[in-house]
């Protein structure tokens, strides 16, 4: 746009008025020109319009300058917010790493407890199997008297008592396993909150980066990467949470199976004691004890089988959770590496 002075120069041949706004210049020029008054007035009007235009232009320029200053201030504010978000991001990344470590520790303890449960279940199942084989081998023929059956029954009682004790131990182990599973669930929930917080921080960082203009564009990409890692962490912890929930169900089933197992072993012991009692023949017909004992043992074996299934299912869930944990570990490393890069380069230096 042309300046007010240049406009006045263009006007001059028409109005024959000096293109200057000050009356000190206009008055002598008007006197010297010998123009009549109406023409001079038109000239003045044109000059006034030019002056208004110039003022309008100055106003627009001032507004533009103010807008630019505001944008610059916004950029500075956005950069300051970004820089202030960085320690928070680092803090949360550290919390995330610590959270993953705590999940890993809880998972290790869980694995140890699970291994004990495996051994106990396998031991109990083996004893039951041996007992069943022994009972079958030493069982008297159906016509034999109850006196002759006393010998295998005498051997049975200590074995069943040992099984009863083992079942009690197994119950404790399952309870411990339940507690460890709860610990993992808590650690995973904490992890999820931290990754959500990181996601939120990176979202706001991206918004601020966009406001920061060219200097913030690099950070948009970094914030996206941080968000991706946080999302993957969230997804992995969700996966672990699912496995943990499944493991909890299996542990609960295991606890119930152990209780059933214990009750069945108790039943077996009672059958043996009844059979060995002073007047078994008066209480029930011959052969009833054997049938009851065999039934009790069958029940015990079925429950032990269910326990083995639970134990195996727990092992599978544990392996899957471990896999997710390894993934989490990798994500934590990547996140730390991205944040370290950011700390060294700063948001402006980011690619």
């Amino acid at each position, binding site marked *: 746009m042309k300046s007010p002075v240049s406009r006045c120069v263009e006007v001059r041949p028409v109005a024959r008025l000096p293109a200057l706004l000050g009356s000190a210049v206009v008055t002598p020029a008007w006197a010297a020109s010998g123009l009549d008054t109406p023409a001079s007035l038109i000239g003045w009007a044109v000059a006034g319009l030019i002056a208004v235009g110039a003022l309008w232009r100055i106003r627009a320029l001032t507004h533009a300058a103010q807008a630019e200053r505001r944008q610059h201030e916004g950029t500075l504010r956005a950069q300051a917010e970004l820089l202030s978000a960085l320690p928070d991001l680092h803090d949360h990344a550290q919390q995330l790493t610590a959270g993953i470590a705590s999940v890993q520790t809880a998972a290790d303890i869980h694995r140890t407890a699970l291994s004990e449960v495996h051994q106990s279940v396998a031991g109990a199942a083996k004893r039951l199997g041996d007992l069943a084989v022994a009972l079958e081998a030493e069982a008297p023929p159906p016509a034999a008297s109850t006196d002759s059956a006393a010998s295998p029954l005498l051997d049975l009682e200590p074995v069943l008592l040992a099984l009863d004790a083992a079942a009690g131990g197994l119950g404790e182990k399952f309870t411990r396993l339940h507690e460890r599973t709860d610990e993992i669930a808590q650690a995973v929930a904490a992890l999820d909150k931290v990754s*959500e917080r990181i996601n939120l921080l990176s979202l706001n960082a991206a*918004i601020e980066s966009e406001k920061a203009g060219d200097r913030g564009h690099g950070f*948009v990409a970094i914030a*996206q990467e941080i968000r991706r890692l946080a999302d993957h962490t969230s997804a992995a912890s969700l996966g672990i949470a699912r496995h943990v929930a499944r493991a909890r169900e299996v542990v609960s089933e295991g606890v119930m199976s152990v209780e059933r197992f214990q009750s069945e072993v108790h039943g077996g012991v009672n059958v043996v004691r009844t059979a060995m009692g002073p007047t078994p023949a008066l209480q029930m017909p011959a052969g009833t004890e054997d049938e009851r004992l065999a039934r009790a043992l069958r029940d015990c074996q079925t429950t032990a089988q269910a326990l083995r299934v639970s134990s195996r299912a727990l092992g599978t869930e544990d392996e899957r959770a471990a896999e997710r944990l390894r993934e989490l570990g990798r994500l934590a490393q990547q996140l730390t590496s991205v944040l370290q890069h950011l700390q060294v380069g700063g948001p402006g230096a980011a690619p």
Partner: protein
Amino acid sequence: MLVIPFWIGQEAYAVASADLYGVLPRPLLRSMPGGPAGLLGVFNYRGRWTPVLDAHFLLGGVSARPALATRVLLCHTKVPDVALGLLCEKVTDALTVDPAAWSAPGVRLGDAPWLGPLQTSGGITVQRLFIPHLLTPELAAALDSLESPA
């Protein structure tokens, strides 16, 4: 151009990051009994009572479900330095979109002037939301009264 998408059911909407102050976790809201439908309440944001609207209610007729990813988009309004919160579900990502790729849906929506143009980015079709148009006259009147000092 950076946009912050959110989801209502299977459909994504987006608010331009330039229209936002930021994203907040769902704050503790002070309810406003007798307020217009869609107004969840107000919360104190940096010393100013800021209204929060339920985007799900306004766009889908159902309330947003509480979840970690249900967050408040703190939007600019026509009044400088006065923000308006919009509670949205699944606010977890920011999308970089081509500002020239927005195109009109081809349907005249006289009753829904807040629904802006559409674009597909990264396999997701997002519709831009114009926040000032989201305010019905009733809501706008209620918010005006909230904006005036007590």
